[in-house]
Structures are given as structure tokens and as C-alpha cells.
């Protein structure tokens, strides 16, 4: 038992080390460096073209002129001390940049997961109950067609309808600029108001997956013997569905939600771009464009850690839902 847990810890550290190494070397393998921009990305964009003198000065300032292995050791050394380094582009400690942007992403990702899961389970159950009836067919074809719309396009459509034509929601941002809130409740409302469309977009993009999974597992489950037994016992329809069928069908849905949060952390870039939402995805995008190595490393690390945490959480919840699993 002792040895087993030791080897487990070992594996974990090895994984982490490989992850950190990839995080470190991959961004540096991209062509270019943070200071050699000479062209703008779009017509009319302003860029500051650095002189060779400036470029060398800044390469030295950030220690990028040292040999790569030395830089890597330095990075590991600082990481152990809890120092993620300083963002080259934003000039701030990476930790602070992440601290500023991560909560916004968490808000929309967690919000979207909750909504898409609850809505997906609800609709999936509805469909399964009415299997092969009109309602099921309509729901299914509608949602499958819907799933084919890429999330950024969906975001654009929602933005056009709700923000441009109906003017119900803001065009961009996570807060009303320079707002003077009279109380925390007002501020919360403002945050929810700005998060609504991004959350809706992400939720709708994930909805079909949850719906299909719920529907299919429910249908599989309902053919099982124990459901027949439950029905034969004379239990009510509701009880059979909720206690016997849904609880079992929910297991894969929970797993999926956990993974989904991880995947969404990475996929949120597009949605954040459409709504100019100041989350971690948008920050990662600009970090890659700017070759901001410390920031890319920091954000990738955070995403990796949050995926690991989600998996851990899924395991825990799974244990609660399914007593057969012992952790």
C-alpha cells in the first residue's frame, strides 16, 4: 500500500515535470521573439517597432539572452518559490494578470456548465420519456442541428440580436465602465447582466452534448431489469424515473460536466473574443500573439491545474452518486 502510493506520487510529479517542460519549451519554439514585431496584424493598427538596441536591452532585461537550459532551471527555481515571473507584454507579475482575468473566465465557464447541464438533463429526460414521439423527434433534430453552429458564430448571432437590434444586453466587457455602484447587489446585477450572453453562448454550445448523453443513457437504463423490477413492484412513475433511472443515467453526465469545464477553459477563447470579455482565454490569445513566454506558461499551467482539479472533483462526486465506487 505504502509503495503503491509512493509510485503514484512519483508519477504525478513526473507528469507535472513533463507538463512544465512542454509549457516552457513549446512557446519558445514558436518563430519570433517578444520584441521583434515589424508588421501590424490588420490595416491601420499601430505598432512600435523596436530598434536593435532596444530589442537587445529587453532580451537581456527579461533574461531571454541566457541559454535555454539555464532559463529553464531559473524558471523551475522560481516556480518552486511560487514565482510565476513577470509578463513581458503587460509588465505585471504573471500571478496578478491571472488573478485579474481568471475569475471572469471561471464565472462564465462554471455558469455555462451549470446551465447547460441542468437544462440538458431536463430536456434529455423529457425526450427519453417521450421516446419516438413527436416531442422527442422535434427536440432531437432541433438540438442536433443547433450543435452544428460553431460557438463563435452563435455568439455573433446572439450579439447581433440581443445587443445590436434589441439593445437588451451590452456589446462588450464584463462591467459597465466607470460605474459607481450604490451597493454590492447592484454590482452583482451588473456582472450577471454582462455575463449573460457569453454564458448563454457557451451553455447553448454545450447543451446538445449533455442532452444527447442524458437521453441515450436514460433510454439504455430504462431497458434494464431493475427498472422493470421497480415498475413491477408498483412504484410510481416519478419514483422510478428519479430514484432508479435518472440517478444511474446521471453518472456519465457528471463525468462529462467535469471534463467539459476543462475543455471549456481552453475553448472559451473564441467566445471571449466575440464579447470582448476580459477572461483568461482572451489574455492567452494576446499572450501568444505577443510571444509573452512567462504569461503563456502561467496561463497554461493554470488551465492544466484546473483540468486536474476538475477530474479530482468528478471522482469525488462520482463516489457520492455511485456507492459502488470506492476512492
Amino acid at each position, binding site marked *: 500500500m505504502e509503495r503503491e502510493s509512493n509510485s503514484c506520487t512519483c508519477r504525478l510529479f513526473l507528469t507535472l515535470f513533463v507538463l512544465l517542460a512542454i509549457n516552457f519549451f513549446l512557446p519558445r519554439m*514558436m*518563430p*519570433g521573439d517578444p520584441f*521583434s*514585431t*515589424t*508588421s*501590424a*496584424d*490588420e*490595416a*491601420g*493598427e*499601430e*505598432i*512600435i*517597432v*523596436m*530598434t*536593435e*538596441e*532596444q530589442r537587445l*536591452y*529587453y532580451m537581456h*532585461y527579461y533574461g531571454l539572452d541566457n541559454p535555454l537550459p539555464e532559463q529553464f532551471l531559473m524558471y523551475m527555481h522560481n516556480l518552486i518559490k511560487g514565482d510565476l515571473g*513577470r509578463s513581458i*507584454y*503587460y*509588465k*505585471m507579475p504573471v500571478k496578478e494578470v491571472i488573478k*485579474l*482575468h481568471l475569475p*471572469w473566465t471561471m464565472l462564465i465557464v462554471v455558469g455555462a456548465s*451549470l*446551465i447547460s447541464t*441542468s437544462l440538458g438533463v431536463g430536456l434529455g429526460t423529457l425526450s427519453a420519456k417521450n421516446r419516438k414521439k413527436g416531442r422527442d423527434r422535434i427536440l432531437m433534430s432541433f438540438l442536433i442541428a443547433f450543435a452544428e453552429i460553431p460557438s463563435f458564430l452563435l455568439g455573433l448571432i446572439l450579439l447581433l440580436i440581443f*445587443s*445590436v437590434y434589441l*439593445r*437588451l444586453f451590452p*456589446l*462588450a*466587457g*464584463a*462591467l459597465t*465602465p*466607470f460605474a459607481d455602484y450604490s451597493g454590492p447587489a447592484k454590482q452583482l*446585477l*451588473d456582472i*450577471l*447582466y454582462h455575463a*449573460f450572453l457569453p*454564458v448563454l453562448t457557451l451553455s447553448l454550445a454545450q447543451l446538445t452534448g449533455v442532452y444527447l448523453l442524458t437521453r441515450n443513457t436514460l433510454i439504455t437504463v430504462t431497458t434494464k431489469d431493475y427498472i422493470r423490477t421497480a415498475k413491477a413492484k408498483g412504484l410510481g412513475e416519478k419514483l422510478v424515473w428519479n430514484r432508479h433511472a435518472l440517478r444511474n443515467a446521471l453518472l456519465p453526465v457528471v463525468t462529462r460536466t467535469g471534463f467539459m469545464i476543462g475543455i471549456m477553459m481552453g475553448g472559451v477563447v473564441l467566445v471571449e473574443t*466575440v*464579447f*470582448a470579455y*476580459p477572461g483568461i482565454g482572451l489574455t492567452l490569445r494576446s499572450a501568444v*500573439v*505577443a*510571444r509573452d513566454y512567462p504569461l503563456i506558461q502561467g496561463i497554461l499551467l493554470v488551465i492544466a491545474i484546473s483540468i486536474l482539479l476538475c477530474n479530482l472533483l468528478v471522482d469525488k462526486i462520482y463516489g457520492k452518486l455511485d456507492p459502488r465506487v470506492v476512492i
Partner: protein
Amino acid sequence: MVKKKLIALFFCLAALLLITAGCIGQDEAQAEPSAKNISETGSEHADVVYLSGGDYGYPQPFTIYPRGPGSSKVGMIFDSLVERDEKGILPWLAKSWNVSSNGKEYTFNLRKGVTWSDGVLFTANDVKFTFEYEQKNLPVSGGIEAGVVDHVQVVDPNTVKFVLKQPVSTFLYKLTGFKILPKHIYKNVQDPVGFLDPKAVTGTGPFLLDEYNKEHGTYRFVTNENFWGPDTAVKTVEFIPVSDALIAFEQGKIDFTGVSPDTLERFRADPAIRVVQQPAFWGYQFYFNMNKCPELKDRKIRQAFAYAIDRAELVEKIARGAGKPGKMGILSEDHLWYNPTQPEYAYNPKKAEALLEEAGWLDTDGDGIRDKEGKKLSYVLSLGSGEVRIGELLKERLKEIGIDIQVRALEGKSRDANLRNGDFELLISGFGGWGRDADYLRTRYCDTDSQAGSVASGARVFGYHNATLNALAAQQLQETDEEKRKEIIYEMQLVLAEDVPAIPLYYTTSYDAWRISKYDGWMNMYDHHARTHSILSYLKRDGLAKKR
């Protein structure tokens, strides 16, 4: 049970969101300004002007980002010795100046009684300090590169003298970007890149930074009541984030926007909105790599490219009219020192073919591609993913004269890395700064100086050498007489237009639009395309800043 409660909670939350959305949305709609009192001349004063924001860094010279209009935000807080208006350079913190006859000593008489926004008096010591500090700690923009100034001397508290190593005709121009820092604050700062303290934005300029929010990309600048110069015409400037500037403008959330050619008519028809084209100071350059492809050293081939590429068509189809075709003398028609009498290269495939034949390039094997001694005129054209359509049009046009092009789209930084290392055959790069001091004809096309200077715009060309051009470039850099220098620049344009070391494809002339009832004081500096970047756009145009 818990599950049930949770689900109920989610639905409550969703319902709450919908309700709040309705409420706040209506509030905002009511708060929207209505367009009233429209006059022909427009408003010369505004309490608040809203502009399209975004995070471009903390507005001090060391912490702005290298992409985007960060330096113009520094310019709202910090002053330079000299400033730019529509016509040229004008006195700013320096009231007047003398240049010694050998062109090596610049003596500036500074304005008296100027104070920093914290009340400390501004003196010549600040100027000397800023220069020396920025030699050790290079700012992101506005620094004076090493090797220009020998030393700075404080003559008295209101007089400062810059002694140059050799005459540099662009020195005053360089100073327009050289923002003076407060010595009493920065002298204690070891690492200005990490200096994000409110003290870091203590300036002498017309505005104070009231609020900056990095995560949301908002800035609020308010009038510096102790500003020494002309009164602010705009009391408060707010930069707010928008996802689509045009829609935000239509909804009245911002007061100034760029307009795409498709939506132009809608705004032109509205008398409340002024629509003006920007000067052509942003452009795409087509690079030849003469090191990698030595046959391109023959200028007949390069001239053939210039005749074959239909630049008017590019303006028509890609820029949809909002641009001007590139001039082979490099400077755009809107440049202060543009030479109007230079060889023109209007689209002429016949002439291009004749030039190639003269140079000995014929299609000997009938595959539609010209060749000579086994070498084919076949090239890879590298460009950014946003320039693919330009590349495709060029491919079509060059095919007509027997030159084969394969378009290779790259991510921005990769393209820049290739351009920097000379790892390309043909390449397109777009950048601004075409309106700057014409010294960039030297830094971009001459191979004398190993280092690009700070007035540089665009990367250097590869493998091009012209001794006459080099000599002219060196001469203009030393020439302190403006008129004589202008003549040399005119001559350089003739040499360039004859030689075609690179092809400016087209310069963009985007449209700006603003509500004249809100604020109508927007102006362009003589060398820059963006109106919102000039500090004079926000000031009353009288006294020192009077319209010329």
C-alpha cells in the same frame, strides 16, 4: 433532494438574469444621448468624450504595450520639448531654441513656472535627468537611441543644451516623442518597467490619469487644472471597451469611430456626423529578397513587378476605395515631402513583359513561366493571414507576365521572424509611420548603418545596394537647412522610383466619423493618420496651439 434544490436554484438564477437584463437594458436606452442642436461648425467644447478603449498598458513610457496606441496615452500626461500640429513642429515645453552653426548644439529655452502635477517645479534638470535615465533604462517608445547625443548640459534652471556627436537633421523630430519625466520621482526608481505606482504618471501635460483598469481596458483622463498651456477643450476623456466600434458609435456609446467603406453612405447622409478620410500614412510594402534570389538584383525585373502589379485594383478591391496606390518613390502623396514629379508605374503588363524580355527572361518550355539558364521566375510570397486576398490578386496579375507566385500565409510573428532573418523570397508586411520624417528612406533602403534608428518605420530591405542613395541619405542626415534637406529627399525619391528596391502596394486612407454636436475639434498631426492620437485634438486651438 440536494440535487433537486440545486436544479431549482439554477432556474432561479437563470430567471434572475433575464429579469435584470430587461431592467438594465432599459435604463441604458434612456440614458443615451439624443442628437440635438446640430450646427454646421460643431461643438468646440465637450465635458466628456468617449472613445473606443482597450488595454494598452499603464500610461508611462516604460510600461505601455508595443502594440496599439499606448504612446498617445503617455502623451496626454507627459509633455515633450516640442510638439506637432497640422503643419510641423511647434514649441511646447521649450519656448524657443537655437541650433549652433555646426548643427551639433541645440540650446532650448524652457517655459518658466511650469509645474509637475504634484506641484513641484519643472526645470532643466528634469530634461537632463530624463535623457540620462533613458540611456540606462530604455523606454518602449520615445527614447533617443545611443550614439546621437554626446551629453546634455544644464545651463541654468530654464536653459538646457543638447550636444550631439554629429549633426543629426532629425533631432528635433526625435524630440517630439521624447517625453520629459519628473526627476524627483524617477530618480529613486531602479526598475521603471515595474513602476505601476500612481506617482509614475506625474506629468506636466494637460491631463491627469484619473482611473485605469487593466482588465477591462478603461482609462479616464481628467483635465490637469495646473497645466501651463492652452485650456483643454475636452474636460474628460474616457476610453471604454467596445467589441464593435461602429455599433457602439451608432448607439451613442462612443463619440468617434473608424468607418468601413461599406457603411460609409449611411454616415455621409447624416448631417450630424462628420466623415473625413485619414491621410495615407499606413501602408503595405512588398519586399524582394535579393540575397536569396540574386536575379532580383536586376532592377528591370523589379520594375516589371511594379508595372504588372495593379495597385489601383488593390485599392479598389481590397481597400474598397479607402486607400491610395503605392508610389515607387516610397513616400505617399500625403507626405510633407512627397516628390510629385517621379517615374510613375501605372498598370502596364505589356511594358512589364518587354522589360523581362530585355533582361533575357523568356518562356522557353511553354509552361507559362519565364525562365533563363534553367532558373524559373517562380517565387513563394510570404504574408500574414490577413493579407491573403492581396496575395491572390498579385498572383493573378504576375501570372499574366509569366511570373509564378505561391502564396504562403503565416501567423504574424512568424512572418516577422522570417522578414527579420531574411528567410523569404517575396513578402508583404503592413505597418504605419509612413508620414514620419523622411529619414526612414535611409533606415529602410540604405545598407550603410547597421542599426535602424528610432524614426524607423518598417523593416529594412534585403540585398539592395545603391551607392548614390547611400550618399544622399548620409548627406540629408547632416543637412541642417530644411530647404536643402528637402531637395535631397526629393532626389532620393527619384533614385528609389527608378530602382524599385521594394514596392509600396497601397497606403490606407480609412474614414473617421464623429458627431459634430458632441465634439468637433479633431485634428491630424502632419505626420500621423490617427486624429485621436494628437494631444492638440483635445486642446483649445488658441495661443500656442493656434491653428496655422
